């Protein structure tokens, strides 16, 4: 592997093109977490009493918990009293049209390559734009409403559709679920809400773009997607943050509910600031994502491309409750420089003839450490359940690592579980072959790695697949000497 050596100087020059800060007039909560801050957030959002009580229950549970340490990542202790839990760009209390969005906010999204102007957008995608703790705008709301689809910020959903929120909030990820989910339940600020009524195929892709802008804040959003009987939706999530020397915490919760015959496809391209070449700064991305196939013949599919964050720690899972329901997880995780990723999925089979597919592609370069951790649990009731898992790791350079921790629990004898795993390197032979054909070394590595990920990229919606390939190339820049 002599020519695939790591040149630290080059890695340091690796560009993160979303690292700018926008000067927004921001409304901040006092630093730290306590009942007053939670009450403040709740009142700023004009929440009903039951939601504040739910938050406080979560908070009281959270203070009894200790931060988990079992994950295969290393970081300095987080001071939870030194974080600002609410940061909102100031704007009019309610926005009647997109024209009223703060021009600075619009300019920021333009710079990110995301136009909030409906006419200028590809007509197939509706977008909810979340900056720090609040949703600044949601496009195509009216057009979606014609189809009966509700797509709005979580705060608006609490105001306008409280019964739906109350029925499903915490139904997949209860507030006692885990340390970070509990923290989120106490202080979550905004996020997206999608509701697809019975029999409706959502007419466009729904998308939320998360942007952290303010310093010393964390982002704690909550997303809830409900697809009623026979409904289907494809949802995309993208995220970026400015370059800062200190770490910022992102602890989100995403809950998906698919009723009978419904299908939800959830795609993420995560590009939070990963920190610099020395490991300074970057986002701690500690996220709980879970879907429940509540009805028979339902399907939930997670596709994630994780190129950013200093630490990524998440396991988008599916609870396969309905008979014949299907869960899928397709993942590409890249750890470059000093990035660490401990990610995978949980597939919990409860219903009969449920099936799940897991395809994980981990790429490590620089000093990156990449861990696949997955749980396939087949309960006694899940007769005839099937799982196929494939975990492939690719190493680029001598100082990186790949680890695999598959957990498999099977409680009946009629199920089939398959697990395949491989670790490979970008070989000298492959590189030489490409170079002999006239392809430069860096482009060759990028092409080989993209090939390695193709199975997962094929699952992404078209425009996301192009974005993912481009991000991957940026992540690999300088990974050959």
């Amino acid at each position, binding site marked *: 592997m*002599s*020519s695939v050596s790591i040149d630290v100087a080059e890695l340091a020059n690796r560009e993160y093109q979303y690292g700018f800060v926008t000067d927004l007039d921001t409304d901040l909560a006092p630093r730290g977490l306590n009942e007053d801050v939670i009450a403040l957030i709740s009142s700023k959002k004009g929440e009903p009493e039951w939601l504040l009580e739910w938050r406080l229950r979560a908070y009281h549970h959270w203070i009894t918990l200790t931060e988990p340490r079992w994950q295969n990542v290393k970081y300095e202790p987080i001071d939870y009293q030194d974080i600002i839990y609410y940061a909102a760009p100031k704007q009019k209390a309610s926005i009647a049209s997109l024209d009223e969005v703060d021009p600075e906010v619009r300019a920021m999204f333009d710079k990110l390559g995301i136009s909030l102007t409906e006419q200028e957008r590809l007509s197939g995608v509706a977008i909810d734009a979340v900056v720090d703790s609040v949703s600044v705008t949601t496009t195509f709301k009216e057009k979606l409403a014609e189809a009966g689809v509700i797509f709005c910020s979580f705060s608006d959903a609490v105001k306008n559709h409280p019964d739906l929120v109350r029925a499903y909030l915490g139904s997949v990820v209860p507030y006692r679920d885990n340390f970070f989910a509990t923290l989120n339940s106490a202080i979550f600020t905004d996020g997206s809400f999608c509701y697809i009524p019975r029999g409706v195929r959502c007419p466009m892709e729904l998308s939320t773009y998360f942007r952290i802008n303010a310093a010393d804040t964390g982002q704690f959003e909550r997303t809830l997607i409900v697809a009623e009987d026979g409904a289907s939706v494809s949802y995309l999530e993208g995220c970026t943050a400015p370059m800062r020397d200190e770490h910022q915490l992102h602890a989100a919760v995403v809950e998906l509910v698919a009723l009978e015959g419904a299908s939800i496809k959830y795609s993420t391209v995560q590009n939070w600031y990963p920190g610099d070449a020395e490991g300074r700064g970057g986002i701690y991305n500690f996220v709980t994502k879970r879907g429940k196939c509540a009805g028979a013949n339902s399907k939930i599919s997670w596709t994630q491309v994780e190129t950013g964050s200093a630490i990524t720690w998440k396991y988008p899972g599916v609870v396969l409750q309905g008979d014949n329901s299907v869960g899928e997880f397709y993942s590409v995780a890249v750890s470059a420089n000093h990035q660490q990723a401990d990610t995978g999925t949980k597939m919990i089979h409860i219903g009969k003839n449920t099936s799940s597919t897991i395809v994980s592609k981990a790429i490590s370069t620089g000093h990156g450490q990449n861990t696949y951790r997955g749980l396939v649990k087949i309960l006694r009731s899940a007769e005839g359940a099937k799982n196929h898992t494939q975990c492939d790791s690719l190493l680029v350079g001598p100082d990186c690592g790949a680890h695999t921790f598959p957990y498999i629990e099977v409680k009946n004898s009629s199920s089939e579980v398959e697990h395949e795993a491989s670790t490979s390197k970008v*070989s*000298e*032979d*492959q590189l*030489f*072959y*490409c*170079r*002999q*054909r*006239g*392809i*430069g*070394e860096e*482009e060759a590595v990028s*092409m*080989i790695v*993209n*090939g*390695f*990920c*193709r*199975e997962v990229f094929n699952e992404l919606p078209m425009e996301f697949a192009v974005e993912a390939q481009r991000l991957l190339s940026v992540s690999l820049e300088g990974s050959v000497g």
Partner: protein
Amino acid sequence: MLRIENLHAKVGNVEVLRGVNLELAAGEVHAIMGPNGSGKSTLAHVLAGREPYEVTGRVLYEDRDLLAMTPEERATAGVFLAFQHPVEIPGVGNLYLLRTAFNSIRRARGLEELGPVEFLGLAEEKMKLVEMDRSFMNRSVNEGFSGGEQKRNEIFQMAILEPKLAILDETDSGLDIDALRVVANGVNSLRSPERTMLVITHHQRLLEYIIPDRVHVMAGGRIVRSGGKELAVELEAHGYAGLDQLTTPLRSEPVGVPQ
């Protein structure tokens, strides 16, 4: 167009090439024959810029110092190696790799790149030369290709990239007689006064189809005999046995070399 002077190549402490001298004029086809371990494939790899050989001597390619160039620079300058064992690259489409290569070279030469549609047109025309089936254009590079498909693919790539110096490393190995004929026809159709070829083979068989201007015999890391095309026939009749007295092979060639 190519002049090799006193070329030595070492891997670790093993000297595989021990002073190769060779001169090829534009448009000529030279064959290099020799027993296993004589250094034939190493010569091909060193000319293409493969690591990790420690190389001394001089190679002039169109009056440029070939050894000072990176593999991709050599490719841009028109050097092409048809590999004996083409490597698999999972997930990368065969045609995609070739278009990337084609356009990288065009870019490096300051020419405009060809779009996917135009390139497909070019590819379909060249595919006919090696009687290739369109279906495996979109398969991953060499993945699951039979020996014959691999070799046809190499010649197809050569047809697209139109090199000035083509080095064919054991292109006949692993081919049955029909596949050999197809590949040889492809190569012959690419012969031109502007294209020089160095055909490396263990067997005289290939040279019945691709008639060389000169034949060289390599043994122990040197060219030990040179002659016209009749030299190949003579070798076929008497084998390489006589050469063993001239020099001893220094190492065995990698496994997979057909006997």
